[in-house]
């Protein structure tokens, strides 16, 4: 984080995440998003702080990041647009995934966006391989994967992290850990950074609501990775905790930040103003633009059509056009064998 411009740029990213996440939450609350999805409020700092510590490019030469649906900020920093974001969530025919899958983004190899998740932990394995490829080709690139805290309980997370560690892949695993339920229910570890030694990787534990702290930790991890020192586990504490996890932990749901997620963007704003890096009016303008960009993207996406039904077919294999089942075509001739099995 160099000067004033950088800081305001960073705020711009936070504000865009915030605006998109807030908009998505209302769409969800209105029942306009088919799947009951995460919207990413409260993940502004960890998402943008981490992503901006990497090198984004659009020609396949930059770093790679695997965001969860909570990490809109990382998606935007790596060149995803609000329009793509809403198209994908709303399952528009024009969406990158053309409605075949929920979430935020399919893969964009040129931009280094690797998504979306399948089951928890899978993307740690996949990103281990993405960064293995960087190593094998001697490229100066690193990868970052966002993970939940309980995701660390999964087999995939373990095998992926251990593989990356063993092969010294330039991978950064960011564990987004809540405050109250981080430990005790699903793990007895005192913290998620404690897991690093078991894999023999470096670790850091930072406040996930502090964008600069996240940025710094990931910057250091990326430098380590680029210099051949392998993977790093970054624990981002204080991320939102889901309602279910809260209840499982017996925590008071009503008073917990999940219901009123902490706003890391607002926190950064206060800091920028207090430290006289930016004026409130400038930041108001940044926010206004973010909201406007989000509003217009969302409205455009809402006006677009869903994919044509037949798009359910085909594309399962290379060059597979997709054939409708025989009982959806012209009625077959009476008494004749069917021409095909589909």
């Amino acid at each position: 984080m160099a000067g004033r411009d950088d800081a305001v740029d960073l705020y711009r990213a936070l504000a865009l995440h915030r605006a998109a996440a807030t908009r998505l939450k209302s769409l969800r609350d209105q029942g306009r998003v088919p799947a009951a999805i995460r919207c990413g409020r409260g993940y502004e700092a960890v998402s943008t702080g981490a992503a901006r510590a990497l090198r984004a490019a659009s020609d396949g030469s930059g770093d790679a990041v695997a965001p969860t649906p909570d990490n809109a900020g990382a998606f935007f920093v790596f060149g995803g647009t609000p329009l793509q974001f809403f198209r994908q969530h709303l399952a528009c025919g024009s969406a990158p995934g053309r409605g075949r899958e929920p979430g935020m983004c399919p893969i964009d190899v040129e931009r280094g966006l690797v998504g979306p998740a399948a089951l928890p932990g899978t993307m740690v394995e996949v990103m281990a391989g993405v960064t293995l490829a960087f190593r094998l080709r001697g490229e100066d690139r690193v990868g970052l994967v966002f993970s939940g805290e309980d995701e660390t309980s999964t087999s995939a997370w373990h095998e992926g992290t251990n593989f990356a560690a063993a092969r010294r892949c330039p991978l950064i695993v960011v564990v987004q850990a809540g405050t109250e339920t981080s430990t005790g229910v699903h793990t007895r570890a005192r913290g998620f950074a404690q897991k690093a030694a078991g894999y023999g990787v470096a670790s850091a534990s930072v406040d996930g609501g502090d964008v600069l702290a996240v940025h710094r930790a990931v910057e250091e991890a990326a430098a380590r990775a680029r210099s051949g020192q392998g993977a790093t586990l970054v624990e981002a504490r204080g991320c939102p905790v889901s309602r279910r996890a809260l209840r499982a932990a017996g925590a008071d749901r009503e008073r917990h930040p999940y219901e009123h997620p902490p706003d890391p963007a607002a926190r950064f704003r206060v800091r920028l103003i207090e430290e006289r890096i930016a004026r409130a009016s400038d930041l108001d303008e940044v926010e206004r633009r973010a909201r406007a960009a989000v509003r217009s993207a969302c409205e455009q996406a809402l006006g677009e059509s869903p994919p044509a039904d037949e798009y359910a077919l085909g594309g399962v294999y290379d060059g597979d056009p997709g054939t409708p089942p025989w009982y959806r075509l012209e009625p077959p001739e009476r008494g004749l064998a069917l021409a095909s099995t589909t």
Partner: protein
Amino acid sequence: MTSNSRPEHLARTLRGEPVTLLEAISEALFEEMERDPSVFLMGEDIAVYGGAFKVTRGFLDHFGAERVIDTPISEAGFTGAAAGAAHMGLRPVVEMQFMDFISPAYDVITNYLATSRYRGSGSVPVVVRGPVGGGNRGGPFHSQNVEMAFFHTPGLKIVYPATAYDAKGLMKSAIRDDDPVIFEEHKSLYRAPHLREVLPAEDYTVPLGKARCAREGTQVTIVTYGAMVHTSLEAAAALEKDDGVAVEVLDLRTLLPLDDEAVAGSVKKTGRLLIVHEDTRTGGIAGEIAMRVNEQAFEWLDAPILRVTAIDSPVPYAGGLEDYFLPRVSDIVTACRYLVEY
């Protein structure tokens, strides 16, 4: 630490009120836990939260934290643990939050649970249950039917009820059974109002391995199960009304072991067989049924065995795509007409 009175929402049958399929399952679990102290539950968010679909709401208060256990996201871990507990004489019932999440446990289920008895290590009476099926805009990882992942594994049983009565009776049989049982519960049937029924107040079971004739007919046999029982019954009614064709609908209820006798018996009566499954086409259960009917009732076939199934692809997300992907009443009608006219 468990309260003695049955929670109000689990006493509907006792009060003579109708229950949904979901409530029937909850009652079965509750009654088996009361009947047999060795029965206990494990799964993600099943205790404090009561489960993603609330199947175990109220269980924690009644049975305590030793018998209603919240687990980490570790499907393999807690399914393997269930086997260990079963070795020691307990009867674990394990919930997969969505049955799609059973895949990390594929190894332990097929290699350990299924083979234990044959290898000389005794029975492993574990029930693995959870919601399956499409039509809910869940996308590729929250909509799968999992029967064919396990149908090829000797040592497992697979149950898939279509009615509240069967769900309760089959669940009780599954829990009392000494072999590992995969128990599939279709999400769309969970709260379907037309499936509410008043169940017997006394304890009853439905035997595993026995199909049920859901509608008698003489001209075509439809063999099906799960949600497709109701789709098939709709088609049968339409065929009766529009074409005067008498379709027999057989609800398998248990997929493994298959009720050969019921299938062959019906085919010997009608001479025509249509298999309907919501699961995807290639490698679906229709194949095994077709093979067995060839072996046992070839001479009685007056037309080729046909099938109506989902399309060979992952389950797509957008509503139109998913609707196109799934089998429809009109597909079944078309296929039956083809068979009758053959």
